[in-house]
């Protein structure tokens, strides 16, 4: 259980860290707009960097969002089930999610390895490497699968979630 907590904390921390990408985005886009409007020039690679930051932010945050219970779900039926049935259903549902997502993880890992071996770059003004983004996708999906497996174990042994969070702030 100790190990589980550490992994979960790592996921939450990684998710929190990914928020910092927002500041970098602002620091890139604002000068870029000013340069483009008033000096007819742009920061080379700014767009590509922003795209990479967004991909990092999304995928490295996925597991943390799951650990915080921040992914939206429909609870209208499950709320009415007795505890045992709810846990059993949760085990089934989360295992099914792991099956689908691990397939995605395998395929995106292959895609990331191809990208690395080919040294894939963007077709822009500058040749920006694309493999870091693809690696982030694969790593993020694997971490999400790991977190879901932890949640399955948690549901099996009936341990409550350590970190919890209210319904998401969006909508």
């Amino acid at each position: 259980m100790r190990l589980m907590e550490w992994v979960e904390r790592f996921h939450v921390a990684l998710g929190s860290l990914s928020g910092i990408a927002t500041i970098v985005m602002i620091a890139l886009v604002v000068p870029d707009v000013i340069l483009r409007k008033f000096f007819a020039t742009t920061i080379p690679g700014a767009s590509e960097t922003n795209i990479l930051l967004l991909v990092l932010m999304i995928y490295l945050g996925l597991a943390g969002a799951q650990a915080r219970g921040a992914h939206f779900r429909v609870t209208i039926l499950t709320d009415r089930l007795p505890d045992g049935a709810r846990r059993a259903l949760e085990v089934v549902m989360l295992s099914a999610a792991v099956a689908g997502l691990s397939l995605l993880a395998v395929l995106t890992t292959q895609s990331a390895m191809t990208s690395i071996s080919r040294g894939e770059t963007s077709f822009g003004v500058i040749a920006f490497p694309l493999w870091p983004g693809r690696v982030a996708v694969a790593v993020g999906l694997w971490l999400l699968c790991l977190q879901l497996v932890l949640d399955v174990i948690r549901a099996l042994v009936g341990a409550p979630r350590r970190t919890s969070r209210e319904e998401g702030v969006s909508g």
Partner: protein
Amino acid sequence: MGLDQAEVGLVMIGGLIALLLGGMPIAFALALSGIVGLILARGWRASEFLLSSFPYSATAQLTLIIIPLFLFMGHLAFASGLSAKAFDAARALVGRVRGGLAIATVFACGGFATVSGSSVATAATMARIAIPEMLASGYKRRLAAGCVAAGGTLGVLIPPSGVLVIYSIATGAPLTELLIAAVIPGVLTALAYGVGIHLMVRMDPASAPATTMPKLTRRQRLTALGSSWELGLLFFIVMGSIYLGFATPTEAAAVGAFVALVIAIARSRGKRGKVLKEGLIETGVATSSIFALVIGAGLFSLGLSTTQIPQDTAAFLAGLDLPPTVILLLILVPFLVLGAFIDGLSMILLTMPVVYPVIEQIGVDPILFGILVTKTTEIGVITPPVGLNVFVVKAAVPNLPIGEAFRGAAPFVVMELILLGILIAIPELTLGLLPR
């Protein structure tokens, strides 16, 4: 596999509903049914290629950075106390009218909505500020709860708007036009709520006692209004630059987030680190969970479009030879029901793969439809059983039974339906500002 395409589509939709009811997170349920559907419909080889590249290509798009930027701006505006200032300004303006505090609450929600793209966040913010004041002034709990829950929906309608960004992603409709088009319906909704509250209080004078607020001089009112200049500035920077074509929505969001950051640094002396840290964490988590939905819905849509179900549905509805308005209503009514169970973002991502081709086929303006859908999904957040805004508000009012809170929101649902009718009847209200 022995399934024809229509059967694959039914398996996908049936499977999705089962997974959703089983409590699987919506994003994963969409992804799973999409993956299974795609493999069944196209076979392994074609699916393998699509599935290995889609998770990257769906997210590696520059325009999408608008989501974290808007989220961050809204959080900073809240942390800088701009919501409290909006309430003070609105109270100075209409506080002496019968039911004035409730009307001021709605207007303050509208003011805060100019920097927030989220309904729940707006309701949560205003609940903390306005409800204690209304209760202390002798307002009935039902009215206090209802006006904040309903006022919160302005957060989504008045730009920036999370739901409109997602609608634009799901349908390809231009975000610039969507954001501009939302302005008049948003202001109209705020005004309609104000008038509605005034009439409600006149019919039931016990719900809101006469004001004890002293009459303010014009100068005092102007000062109070002026104190919320930061909100005005942010709105002008973001929407002004989009409207004038000076910047794309993404660029405008970045500049808006930057200005909000400067304001937050100036306004939150002593707790800057905390404000910034919380803002970044909230933004990171919300971005991940929103994009999980976007990716899941993209996979679902990918699978579903190979089954021809969206195209067949569109052709079928078009073949019915009904007037477009009737078809539009047929599409919107289920949204009212659906909105009572799932949040607006998920609902739009879930339904657009099927619904949008129909809209294109019958010739309803995609911008108008976006605004109508947004409005419809927002009715869902103030109706039982899920009504997220009502739950948020309930948490802010001590000992308020949830049924009472929903009854408080009920008159606003009626107003919403009337407004929806008006927007359908007079498309110019939505499309009039667009540079076409």
